[in-house]
């Protein structure tokens, strides 16, 4: 099961001898919004489907996953990426976490600081004087950046 946190929940239930006769069980996931969860479930299903289709051929699996991931990125707003990361992290869904971290990294690579601030929706949390000092120290990294 890919969502390791959910799996643990089921394991714990079995240990406590709770009879889950019903096929649907309510699992509390207080830290996950419904929207990112829906995306993660789709991702998971797609991942398992592609894996099943290309049982022996690992390269084919990777290629198809890459294609799917590219398309998915087009539909996802950049601001949603952080929520998706948090959801994937909470659910302990390693492949999705890896994918969304890569997406964030390539989104902020070689961009200006204003872009990065806007992306994460946060003003820098250093005080004014400190920030200037740091900017000077790392001036090299702020040159030659891409257009937003």
């Amino acid at each position, binding site marked *: 099961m890919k969502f390791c946190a959910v799996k643990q929940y089921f394991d714990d239930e079995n240990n*406590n001898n709770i009879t889950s006769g019903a096929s649907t069980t309510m699992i509390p996931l207080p830290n996950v919004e419904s929207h990112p969860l829906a995306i993660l479930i789709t991702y998971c299903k797609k991942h398992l489907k592609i894996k099943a289709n290309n049982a022996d051929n690992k390269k084919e699996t990777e290629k198809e996953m890459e294609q799917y991931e590219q398309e998915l990125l087009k539909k996802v707003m950049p601001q949603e990426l952080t929520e998706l990361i948090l959801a994937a992290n909470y659910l302990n869904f390693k492949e999705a976490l890896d994918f969304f971290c890569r997406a964030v*990294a390539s989104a*902020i690579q070689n961009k200006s600081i204003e872009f990065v601030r806007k992306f994460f929706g946060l003003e820098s*949390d250093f005080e004014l004087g400190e920030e200037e000092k740091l900017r000077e120290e790392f001036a090299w*990294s702020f040159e030659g950046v891409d257009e937003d």
Partner: protein
Amino acid sequence: MGSIRAAIDRAAYMISSRMKQRKEEGHAKKTDRISVLPDRVIYHILLLLPTIDVFKMISLFKNWRRVWASFPLVLDFHHKFAYGTERHNQLKLIKFVEYVFLILMPRKHIARLSTFRLNLDYFDDDACIHTWLSFVAESNVEELDLAVSYYRLPQTILHARSLRVLKLAMLRLEVKFGSIMLPSLKTLSMNMVMLDDKTIYKLISSCPALEDLDINWCCGLSNLQVSNPNLKSLQVQHRCPLPIQIEAMNLESFAYKGNYDQCKIRFVACQALRSLSLSETVFAEQWLRDQISRLPQLKNLKARSWGIPEKLYH
């Protein structure tokens, strides 16, 4: 084991997310997403970013700086220089050098350096790189990745006790006198490195923990002898016919790719070999049968002679 702990974790999450909700409801402004990312996720993203962007991030956000300062340090420098003496390129070069020194100098960073990568097309200031590498050699570096054309590698690196992975490309290596001591080295990869038979023999034999070895298109070799008791996987690619003797009793996989020329490989002691691949090379069928007869564990064989050899050889 997990059930009580998991329940406490879940409860903690529920409480903190309720508190967060209330805090957010109190503020009318946009969501503070960045400070919510857990440390290991921040570290994961930092590892995916080029060093330049890492420094941008840590100069923006306090907790990213904190994570960077407490996890093992990965430094990745690469720079493409145009050939020629254009003023613009010279300035870029000077700035780049300053930048690398700026990052390497603080001693407190050196203590936790785990990976160092330097990839420069062409750089004619060997002394500069020597200085950088001397800092690296002082650290507990585990992975070293160097690709600098024609750079002569100093022997200090060849005594790095903590080194587990060493990847060298396009540089020069010569060890005439003196020893090599790489007791933790597990993976060694050399691409287009200039070195002679004696040096490579010494290098391979001085790595008791070596498991993976890649020797691709290295020049200066006339007779390759691979002798190592723990070696598990070997790959050789070469541009001209190269006599190779392999004495590795734990070797499990060997792959050779020639340049549509004669295969001159001899397995001296490879009883554990399971997987053999010979491509783009020419050999006689009898030769192959002889080799196979000396490899009792062989399970995967991929070997097809590229043409018929002009004369039979053993």
